């Protein structure tokens, strides 16, 4: 079951004031009557605000957004007063839930985003998505989101831009998912990136190289690698022949021949070679290992004194002497003959000296080896550093100038797009980093040399390792600058080569050389490129097919929508020979343009109609009916459970009003749609109430007697209130006839008030059978004294009633009707008496 409303509550919203209005909607149809400026539009916009958080009128008047500043809060209420709209809703799951939106910040000047509000469902904070997920109320496309048809949005489609109109119908047709699918497929095409390939760039250059012969453009179409190689060879041969050089056999040989000629020609124009440089081989030494060797060396050296080292051979010889069996306490010294001098203690001492000296020797060898290795790494690094710089940085200035390698010359060759300045900046930074690294290398080399030459006295491990670490940090900085140099250098190099090649008529040669030297890479690149092109082609084809298919689906759905619109159109304006024909795409290929078509026939049976755009040929009345029919068709398509129609039939369309109150409402109720209607036409109000009484039609009137209290919504059975509200316009009229009628109405109000008061008094006294109908046919004079006697709350009240009756009674018979002031006073007194004695 679609969602339906059982109660609406409005407070503080536009014409609604401090007193909360709570009309109960106990049925599928409710009609609200209100005179001008009594709150009809405020009521429909209150519901719009409840469901969408905004009012559509502001969005439809896009150029006047600022004029809606402070438009939602009742202007007579204090700024902090509550502005809220609530609805009790029977949801599709059978549960009744209460949706409430409270205004937080009204529309502000310069704030295009609109007002802000909070939303709750059954008192719990909620978001707008839950209106659909929890309550089952599906909102439409912006700007007319809620199922509420106001005067301002009825004509929206006729004034909307083509794109807005298409979006509106796409929302009705519910084809956004198809658009999403199409967009996802199209996004895939945009996301396909052609494989980056230097070979394909080279091929493009070669294809522009006319001297490479006409077959060059066939290279990319080669069906197999052998063909590709043959076509490259053909292009190379053609180029060599065109420049008058012999054509060697084989692709590689031809590439070499072209390169030799290219180098020659380039060097005649500009010393391109000076831009070349070699790869940088960074320091490969190991500072930690060097430090370890140095520490070990110093440790062992400390254990062994110089004297021990000098007598090491002697100690070794002594240890080689075999022990004498006749000297148990030790041998005599072999050098001086001291008796028993070479005993066990002495032997142990000598052995320890020998062991320490050997460890020292080993540590010394290791350390010196590390020093030599580090020196070698230093020298290698210095050489690599030199070669890593572009050649022009290693040449002396005089030689550079002699070769015409100058900034002025380069400036002539490269485009003036800032690349030269960027390159010069990178060159300066690279030069600074080079000098810094050279200094570190020299400093470290000095330390290493010193340690190597003075190892017996040397002990500055910290200084040595710091020097090595300095190399590492300077080297890191150099590598950074070298990397930063690469980009600008490539751009300058390309700029120079392009100009030089152009001057030397060698454009495309280098590309041909590269391709000739590696045809396999080109073959691979061509395969990748073909696969990419195939994918792009497949997607484009798929998108074309999807577009066609979506168009056909849209046509199907438009036809169904057209049937629904026709259904309502024919109920509103049956048997007219100018009629709504259909809503459709402008053409088979149109995706963004939707037309509303009218059929025009000279015959009553609509035979042989001619078709035109409805917007152009329909009268205002017909467009109004079309807007209503479109809205109703949309409500049906979107399965709206309820709709609110604000004066759906123009006052001038008297002929079609009965069609609306009968067959249109019948159609809506048959489809299970709850209908709320606001109207200022009392005849429509009464007709709906009478005709749909059997469907429990609810009737309400809206009156706005006090600006702060605001619009009041009363049930129709409050006849007296209805009579007062209906009389109010006549009391203000300058038209004597209308005022005379107003006087008559006020007299009826006095009689009605008096009868109600008498019945009320009798009921209070226990007469439950008392009824107004018992006074039918009796005039005021017969019961006026009884009424005066009941007006006891204020001594002036009987006089007010008597005076009022006198004023309007004479007015209904004399030629001169009562003045507006007289009528207003009488009506005001009656309104107060009603409140004091009956409400």
């Amino acid at each position, binding site marked *: 079951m679609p969602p339906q409303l059982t109660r609406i509550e409005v407070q503080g919203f536009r014409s609604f004031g401090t007193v909360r209005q709570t009309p109960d909607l106990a049925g599928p149809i409710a009609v609200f009557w209100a005179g001008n400026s009594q709150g009809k539009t405020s009521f429909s916009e209150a519901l719009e605000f409840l469901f969408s958080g905004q009012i559509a009128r502001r969005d439809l008047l896009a150029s006047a957004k600022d004029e809606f500043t402070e438009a939602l809060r009742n202007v007579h209420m204090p700024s902090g007063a509550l502005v809220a709209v609530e609805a009790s809703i029977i949801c599709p799951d059978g549960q009744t839930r209460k949706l409430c939106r409270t205004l937080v910040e009204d529309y502000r000047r310069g704030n295009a985003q609109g007002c802000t509000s909070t939303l709750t469902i059954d008192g719990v904070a909620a978001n707008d998505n839950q209106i659909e997920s929890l309550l089952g109320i599906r909102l439409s496309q912006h700007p007319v989101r809620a199922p509420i048809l106001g005067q301002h949005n009825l004509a929206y489609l006729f004034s909307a831009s083509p794109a807005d109109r298409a979006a509106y119908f796409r929302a009705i047709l519910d084809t956004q998912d198809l658009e999403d*699918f199409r967009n*996802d497929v199209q996004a895939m095409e945009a996301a396909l990136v052609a494989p980056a390939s230097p070979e394909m760039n080279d091929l493009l250059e070669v294809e522009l190289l006319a001297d490479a012969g006409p077959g060059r453009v066939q290279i990319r179409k080669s069906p197999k690698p052998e063909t590709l190689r043959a076509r490259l060879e053909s292009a190379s041969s053609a180029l060599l022949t065109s420049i008058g050089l012999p054509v060697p056999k084989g692709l590689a040989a031809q590439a070499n021949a072209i390169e030799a000629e290219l180098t020659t020609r380039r060097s005649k124009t500009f010393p391109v070679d000076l831009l070349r440089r070699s790869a940088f081989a960074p320091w490969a030494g190991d500072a930690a290992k060097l430090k370890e060797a140095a520490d070990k060396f110093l440790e062992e050296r400390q254990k062994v004194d110089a004297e021990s080292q000098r007598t090491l051979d002697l100690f070794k010889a002594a240890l080689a002497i075999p022990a004498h069996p006749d000297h148990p306490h030790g041998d005599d010294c072999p050098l001086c003959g001291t008796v028993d001098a070479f005993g066990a203690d002495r032997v142990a001492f000598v052995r320890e000296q020998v062991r320490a000296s050997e460890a020292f020797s080993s540590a010394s060898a290791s350390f010196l080896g590390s020093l030599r290795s580090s020196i070698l790494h230093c020298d290698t690094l210095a050489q690599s550093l030199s070669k890593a710089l572009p050649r022009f940085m290693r040449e002396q200035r005089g030689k550079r100038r002699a070769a015409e390698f100058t900034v002025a010359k380069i400036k002539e060759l490269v485009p003036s797009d800032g690349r030269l300045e960027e390159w010069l900046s990178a060159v300066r930074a690279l030069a600074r980093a080079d000098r810094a690294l050279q200094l570190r290398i020299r400093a470290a080399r000095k330390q290493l040399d010193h340690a190597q030459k003075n190892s017996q006295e040397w002990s500055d491990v910290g200084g040595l390792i710091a020097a090595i670490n300095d190399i590492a940090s300077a080297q890191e900085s150099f590598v950074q600058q070298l990397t930063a140099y690469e980009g600008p250098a490539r751009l300058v190099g390309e700029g120079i080569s392009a100009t030089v090649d152009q001057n030397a008529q060698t454009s495309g040669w280098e590309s041909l050389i590269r391709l000739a030297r590696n045809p396999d890479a080109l073959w691979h690149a061509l395969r990748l490129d073909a696969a990419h092109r195939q994918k792009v082609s*497949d997607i484009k084809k798929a998108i074309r097919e999807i577009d066609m298919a979506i168009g056909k*689906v849209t046509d199907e*759905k438009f036809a169904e929508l057209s049937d629904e619109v026709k259904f309502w159109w024919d109920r509103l304006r049956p048997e007219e020979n100018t009629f709504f024909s259909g809503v459709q795409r402008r053409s088979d290929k149109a995706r963004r343009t939707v037309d509303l078509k009218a059929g025009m026939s000279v015959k009553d049976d609509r035979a042989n109609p001619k078709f035109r755009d409805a917007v152009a040929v329909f009268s205002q009345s017909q467009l109004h009916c079309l807007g209503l029919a479109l809205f109703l068709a949309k409500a049906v398509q979107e399965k709206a459970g309820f709709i609110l129609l604000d004066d759906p039939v123009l006052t001038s369309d008297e002929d079609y009003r009965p069609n609306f109150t009968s067959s249109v409402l019948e159609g809506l109720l048959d489809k299970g749609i709850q209908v709320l209607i606001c109207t200022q036409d009392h005849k429509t109000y009464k007709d709906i109430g009478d005709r749909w009484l059997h469907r429990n039609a609810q009737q309400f009137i809206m009156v706005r007697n006090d600006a702060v209290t605001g619009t009041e919504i009363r049930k129709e059975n409050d006849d007296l209130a209805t009579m007062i509200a209906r009389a109010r316009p006549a009391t203000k009229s300058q038209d004597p006839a209308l005022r005379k009628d107003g006087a008559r109405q006020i007299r009826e109000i006095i009689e009605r008030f008096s009868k109600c008061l008498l019945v009320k008094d009798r009921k209070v006294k226990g007469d439950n059978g008392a009824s107004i109908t018992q006074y039918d046919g009796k005039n005021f004079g017969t019961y006026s004294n009884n009424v005066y006697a009941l007006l006891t709350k204020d001594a002036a009240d009987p006089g007010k009633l008597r005076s009022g009756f006198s004023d309007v009674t004479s007015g209904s018979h004399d030629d001169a009707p009562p003045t507006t002031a007289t009528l207003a006073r009488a009506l005001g007194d009656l309104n107060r008496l009603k409140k004091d004695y009956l409400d």
Partner: protein
Amino acid sequence: MATSTPNPTDSDKPQSNDERLAAQLAANGLARALLAVWNPAEPPERRRERLQQTLGSHNPGQASNDAAATDTN
């Protein structure tokens, strides 16, 4: 679409958008294959991933050959 469920009681006339669209697309074409894996309920990245996979594996030539073989048979 991946989540579509044909209505068994109304097999003559497709009702849902994806069924209507599928009926308009060539049976062995890429568009139909893409539609078959596209699921609006999935996050956009996952949807695009499925489309990419289908594009990568789709072989229209093979589909044509298969169709031709079927015709021959």
